[in-house]
């Protein structure tokens, strides 16, 4: 295939990605250094009100937004340097918190709170997803062929369900006197409110995410198990390998590329955690980085959106995912170069 045909084939797709991914990224970078504000003017306003003795007039100096010819508030965009980033990171408060040696105070700052949750959520769910995925895959591989189909059907349900609805489904099990809360109350014989503190909400979010992603890992691993070299297994058995050794030294190394694949995908997806915050309505206790950006973007009562701060937090979010993915991508890259040599 010559270069011209190749370009013709990939053209539309690349154009889409440039227009709607690369270009917005550049815009976000630019926006993060600018701030759009309404232009205010200071006026002396005289308000008079009638009283018995005549009119009483009060002169006030008011700051009001200038309204343009089309009836909209005039805005003005200024270069503000790094101040958007400073507004998001809030270093003075961070320093104050550290000076007081207070973790609690530190966690009151939105960005750091979101970062803490996003990272711990990603890193806690990853091993759980891998473990349960592998366990389900091994079990499916272990049972009679006739029931594998139905099991896979049921397993696909949590994976394919709309994330917001999946989170809601878990939430409705626990909300108020929901069925599982009543069960837990009976079990521990005390009153339980699952939505009153951060750690129970985080626990439910982790549960939801593992429930949602483990089937994906399981199906990928199950497909990998079908291609395990049976001769190697046989020779391992002849050499007297125990079941555990077989798993550790034959099956796991065979699945290694798939484990890396699932890790890569899961890191990307779990770092984007967002739907859980919506589904569990947890913004009072737990927020994530994506939700923070979303919140900046949402119009407030005056119809203002803090685009500048949203851009700054977007850029910080992106730096985070890049740092997180570097170790994995490096492994893939070394592997790729090794294959080429």
């Amino acid at each position: 295939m010559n270069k011209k045909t190749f370009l013709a084939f990939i053209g539309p797709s690349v154009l889409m990605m440039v227009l709607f991914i690369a270009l917005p990224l550049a815009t976000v970078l630019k926006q993060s250094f600018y701030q759009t504000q309404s232009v205010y003017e200071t006026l002396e306003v005289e308000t008079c009100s009638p009283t018995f003795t005549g009119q009483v007039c009060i002169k006030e100096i008011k700051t009001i937004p200038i309204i343009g010819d089309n009836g909209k508030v005039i805005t003005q965009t200024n270069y503000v340097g790094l101040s958007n980033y400073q507004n998001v990171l809030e270093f003075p408060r961070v320093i104050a918190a550290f000076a007081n040696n207070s973790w609690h105070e530190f966690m009151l700052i939105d960005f750091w709170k979101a970062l803490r949750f996003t990272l711990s959520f990603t890193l806690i769910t990853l091993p759980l997803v891998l473990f349960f995925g592998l366990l389900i895959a091994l079990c499916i591989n272990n049972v009679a062929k006739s029931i594998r189909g139905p099991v896979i059907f049921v397993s696909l349900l949590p994976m394919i369900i709309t994330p917001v609805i999946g989170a809601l489904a878990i939430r409705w099990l626990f909300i108020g006197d929901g069925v599982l809360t009543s069960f837990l109350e009976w079990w521990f014989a005390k009153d339980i409110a699952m939505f009153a503190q951060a750690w129970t909400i985080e626990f439910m979010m982790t549960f939801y995410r593992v429930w949602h992603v483990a089937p994906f890992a399981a199906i990928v691993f199950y497909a990998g198990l079908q291609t395990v070299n049976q001769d190697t297994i046989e020779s391992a058995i002849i050499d007297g390998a125990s079941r555990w050794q077989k798993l550790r030294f034959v099956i796991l190394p065979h699945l290694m590329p798939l484990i890396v694949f699932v890790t890569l995908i899961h890191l990307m997806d779990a770092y984007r955690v967002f739907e859980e915050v919506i589904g569990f309505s947890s913004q009072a206790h737990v927020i994530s980085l994506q939700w923070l950006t979303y919140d900046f973007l949402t119009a407030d009562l005056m119809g203002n959106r803090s685009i500048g701060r949203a851009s700054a937090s977007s850029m910080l979010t992106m730096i985070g995912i890049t740092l997180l993915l570097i170790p994995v991508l490096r492994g893939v890259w070394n592997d790729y170069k090794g294959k080429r040599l």
Partner: protein
Amino acid sequence: MKDINLIKQPLTLRFSSYFFLIFWCIVAAFPIFWISVISVKLPLDAFNSNALNVIFGPATLSQGKGLSFIDITVGLAIILFTAKLTTGWLGRKVNQYSPNGYVGFGWIIGSMTFGISFIVVFFAIMPSILSVLNEYTGVLGNNIIGFSTEHYSTVWFERDFINNFKNSLLVTTGVVSISLTFGTLAGYGLARSGSNLAFWILIIALVFRALPHSVLVTGYLPFFINSAEILRPIFGDAAPTFYGMPWATVAVLVAINQPFTIWMLRSFFQSIPAELDEAARVDGCSHFQAFRRVIMPVMWPGVITTGLFSFLLAYNDFLVTSMLLEAQNTTMVPAIASMFNMETTTTDQVVAVAAAVSIIAPLFFLVMFFQRQIVSGLTAGAVKG
């Protein structure tokens, strides 16, 4: 070959495998089962602290709303029969009646016809027959489980969910068709080119795949809101405001979906031997003709699979649609956020549950129809790459 494995398996291990799988299936299905149960109960039952009350719904029953033994048997029979049909019969019929090379199209038509006729039979014909039947069958016709569809009618007719449904339909159709058109072209090009450029495009696409969607939305939003003023010098007064336009959202979702689509389609194209297009080229086809006449007819399974995942992305999306569409005129998933946050009465809560079940019901049928394609799609990127 795997017999050695099986024979050597101690009984305890096999037993615990079965036990764990049963446990897992319960965990996997329970939340979904539970919200479907809640959605057909009156509020008093739906959030009752006693699980049995939720399932049997005495308060719902006392209002005279329920299902009899006959209703349940007939309903289950029809569902099982449908499931049986979808797994074998439907596929054979589609293959039989589709003109050569249009099997994928045949599948779309076939499954839509099937789905619609199921809805007609299950929700229109069956209830009217059963209500007559219940009157003449005595004890068997008495209601035993509380069942009320009133929340569904509230959602769909009073809360105007139909409008959201139409938007969802528009957005998903647009996203699936456009991203497949662009994706197949690019996937084919990338699979058949060994150049460095192709490699780097794939790597960049992978990086794009990792971007949080909120980052992209931050880039679009100011432009979309002000697009009428920004584009005025070019288009004059006809310049559109992109904010709130479903088509703009479609374009955004297509772009977000593109990295994933081209990776998956590329791996499907790679599994088709390159000799096939070489043969077509020898017979005098251009590259594009070879692609359209020779490769596409054998690519349908891959295209359907990728289409399914594009559909899921567009259908399940919350962030992009809720940000770029106006709150009154959005798709189904963002629409539900306003429902469950409105915690004024428990009735509102159950209405939100009914809306949630309405949203996931099509997905349930999707898994039923396309289980094999979904599994092959999940493993395509992994096992081959």
